[in-house]
């Protein structure tokens, strides 16, 4: 009733090919972005913005990255954390030694460094597939993190090994360091998330995205059409790692204010993988939904027992959290491999008829 596709005719291929070809979807997304940019900073408090929305947005970017690699190009990676770390450490180096470049450039250079690392560790993907690749990305995970923790150059020879991010400005507003306001950091991160989200959507529907999906679905046929597996796979690795690198840098700059190896360990890699599976493999929207779900679930679990009068120790809750994550992964793979994104779609289909089902 309220959500309709019918009557929304397109008279040109341009209209049919646009990102949100259904009018209502378009209004909804534009409204959502406007809400996020204008209303949320006004009504959100520090906890909501600083502890929920910023991590959700940053991890969404990482999930987008992994989704490009795993969901679109079909290459499994367990090294997401390492590529995030690469972005964070290199952005830190730029921010401290070439401070005049400014925060966005530092973060983008971090992303580019991660892209370089991604290509390097993606090279084996030309000869191997599937789980074999998972093992080589584990090599990236352990080797790169070791590198950052054992080579002092990356942390400017800081004694603690966990240096703080310098305060940096963007158009005169502090967006990093302890002094920066939550609102400024939130908007900065949101800007990255919107731009990178749109770019990912565009890439996915153009030549490059089709190349990735072709390699994912049937690599031999793709080759015979003229898609170069080398180019398709390495571009997926590069772009995916770029996203992860940017996310890692944002995590350090706008969330934890330090560059800390613990934030990028193997558990982070799994966390992002779970976001992608639960959110939906091969879906841009799913990356955001998955990130939100995985960040919010523990918070829900911490509070829910009290609402119903149960008093569980934090130990039990953290164990339950792990179990629930595991069970959800299996559940989604069995029931809905396209994840929350697909559930959203089904909900829309239902909404079409609501409240008059026939």
């Amino acid at each position, binding site marked *: 009733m309220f959500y309709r596709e019918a009557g929304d005719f397109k008279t040109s291929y341009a209209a049919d090919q646009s990102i949100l070809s259904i009018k209502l979807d378009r209004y909804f997304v534009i409204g959502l972005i406007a809400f996020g940019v204008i209303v949320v900073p006004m009504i959100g408090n520090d906890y909501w913005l600083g502890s929920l929305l910023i991590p959700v947005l940053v991890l969404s970017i990482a999930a987008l990255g992994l989704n490009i690699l795993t969901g679109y190009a079909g290459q499994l990676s367990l090294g997401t954390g390492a590529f995030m770390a690469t972005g964070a450490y290199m952005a830190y180096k730029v921010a401290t030694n070439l401070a005049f470049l400014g925060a966005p450039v530092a973060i983008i250079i971090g992303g580019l460094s991660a892209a370089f690392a991604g290509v390097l560790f993606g090279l084996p993907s030309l000869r191997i597939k599937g789980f074999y690749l998972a093992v080589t990305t584990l090599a990236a995970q352990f080797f790169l993190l070791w590198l950052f923790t054992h080579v002092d150059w990356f942390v400017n020879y800081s004694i603690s090994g966990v240096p703080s991010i310098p305060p940096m400005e963007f158009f005169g507003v502090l967006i990093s360091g302890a002094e920066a306001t939550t609102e400024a950091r939130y908007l900065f991160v949101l800007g990255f998330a919107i731009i990178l989200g749109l770019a990912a959507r565009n890439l996915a529907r*153009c030549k490059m995205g089709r190349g990735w999906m072709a390699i994912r679905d049937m690599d031999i046929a793709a080759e015979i059409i003229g898609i170069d597996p080398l180019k398709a796979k390495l571009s997926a690795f590069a772009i995916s790692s770029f996203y992860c690198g940017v996310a890692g840098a944002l995590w350090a700059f706008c969330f934890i204010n330090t560059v800390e190896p613990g934030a990028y360990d193997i558990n982070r890699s799994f966390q992002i993988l779970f976001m992608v599976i639960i959110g939906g493999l*091969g879906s841009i929207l799913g990356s955001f939904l998955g990130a939100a779900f995985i960040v919010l679930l523990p918070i829900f679990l911490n509070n829910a027992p009290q609402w119903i009068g149960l008093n569980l120790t934090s130990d039990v809750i953290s164990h339950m959290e792990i179990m629930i994550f595991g069970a959800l992964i299996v559940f989604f793979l069995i029931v809905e491999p396209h994840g929350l994104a697909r559930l959203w779609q089904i909900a829309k289909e239902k909404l079409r008829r609501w409240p008059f089902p026939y």
Partner: protein
Amino acid sequence: MTETNTNSRIGEELLSVNNIDLSFGGVKALTDISFNINKGEIRSIIGPNGAGKSSMLNVINGFYQPQVGHVRFKGKDYTPMRPALAAKSGIARTFQNIALFKGMSTLDNIMTGRYLKMHSSFIEQALYIGRAKREELEHREKVEEIIDFLEIEAIRKTPVGRLPYGLQKRVELARALAMEPELLLLDEPMAGMNLEEKEDMSRYIIDVNEQFGTTIALIEHDMGVVMDLSDRVVVLDYGRKLADGSPDEVSSNQDVIDAYLGVSH
């Protein structure tokens, strides 16, 4: 020029394979195979199971590298032929076991056929501006023509994994056509189809050949279809060439009859 070149649509030699030997480990798949394909003709490769027909196609588009012999295409020697090279120089193919991109829609599958014709840069694609947008729309138009031609408008946005077998075969043909190939290799385009579907497919093959002037090499088991469609037929058996010529010549060839019906040695 061979004697079958009486028809005006058939031109000079487009592709030739010369003295091809192919073996896997110690097993010989093809022995000293030579034949040519002329511009504009429909050329069939037939033979019993295991005769080396699919291997022959794989050699032509570079998936297998023959140990001996070479492939000439458009007057140029392609040794070694590679799949990417074949695609670039204008050879498209379909597969015996459908090789579509199952997670993608029909439209996207066919659009991948235009991959080599798109040249927009990464930045243009990420921002969907300039060439990227222009190309998407231009090629969409071309692809829609093919969709019309093969009458698959209704399934444009359906993921191909959900389509029935016959339609999948058609989408695969559409994808190959989207490459606007000069030579189209069809590996058993009618395998597993019922009579009606076979008739449809035969019609499409003839239409492709006549309207677009595409040269076609096909492998097929249905002798009726082969004899009706083909200008010339080459017969393989146990990796050797048994006969080569017009459908009439081939069907009256004693070796061919023996190979198909069996003969006491």
